[in-house]
């Protein structure tokens, strides 16, 4: 009986919308465009900054393209531009990349 009921009853779609929005917005709030808005800079400038910082770091350390993140933080004293670099670290058991953050 309950099987029949659930067969005919349409699944509500709003929980799907809710979950999709939650995931999407948590990504978008950390995005380059959003950071650019918050810093009053253009997204192109931030992207260029990200690229150039990466180039400088690459001269000294092997690091991949997607291991650099630029974020903004809003604090009482003002906005902070934070550059996160994920540096590869060789561990003896398995070669995962450890999260060494160089801030500022």
């Amino acid at each position, binding site marked *: 009986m309950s099987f029949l009921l659930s067969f005919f009853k349409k699944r509500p779609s*709003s929980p799907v*919308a*809710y979950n999709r929005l939650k995931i999407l917005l948590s990504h978008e*709030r950390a995005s380059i465009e959003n950071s650019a*808005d918050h810093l*009053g800079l253009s997204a192109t400038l931030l992207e260029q900054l990200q690229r150039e910082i990466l180039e400088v770091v690459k001269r000294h350390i092997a690091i991949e393209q997607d291991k650099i993140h630029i974020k903004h933080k*809003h604090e009482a004293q*003002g906005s902070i531009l934070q550059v996160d670099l994920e540096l590869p670290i060789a561990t003896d058991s398995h070669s995962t990349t450890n999260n060494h953050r160089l801030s500022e």
Partner: protein
Amino acid sequence: MSKVLVVTSGKGGVGKTTTTAALGAALAMMGQKVVLVDFDVGLRNLDLIMGAERRVVFDLIHVIQGDANLSQTLIKDKRVEGLFLLPTSQTRDKDALTQEGVSRVIDELRGKFDWVLCDSPAGIEHGAQMAMYHADKAVIVVNPEVSSIRDSDRIIGMLNSTTQKAKENGEIEKFLLITRYDPERVGRGDMLTTDDVLDILSIPLLGVVPESQDILVSSNVGAPVTVSKPKSVAASAYSEAARRLMGEDVQVTIPTERRGLLEWLFKRKAI
């Protein structure tokens, strides 16, 4: 003290212009001196919704360019005491809205009115930024629907960052107005609830306006819903919102399904 309030959303067609007219009229009916400023350059519509389309002589761009002064340009509403409209132009030259010119006009309006309501164009470009730049308060109009919510989130980010208040390290007071809310669809689980929307966007709720025939009828005759149908559910949602803007502590009414007895019997049979 005079307050500048922007009605904004990111997405188009969610109810900004409808809201500007209805809220502005409600504030004026409470004895406030109110001006509605149309920032949707090129696609002016607030004049039509206010029923003032045949009274437009000069517009915002004329004032900005120094071709007319405010007293020549402001249109006084014939129904509500203390309610005025500053129409925009139909020019396609969006650059006519200069930062310096807008600042000057807003400053002058602050000296004349209790409330300056800015009806923002859709999008996140120049026009929308000009509409929000001088705001002290913002009403974010949102429909309980994924793309509208996503765009609102982006607009909230911009209100927090690219406005004058943000540059002075202050904060714009933000309120959420949910419109085109359909209690029946919410009941079926096919529309996000008020709580869902609040949880996602996390700014204080100003009101919930249901999807309503009365809005369409009001725009047909060129009157804010709070003027033409003051007893309707949509109008009371807007009046409530206006009281909350005035600092009154009123509980937000969430629209519910209103079924007649016949409809109720019919629905039961149909199951």
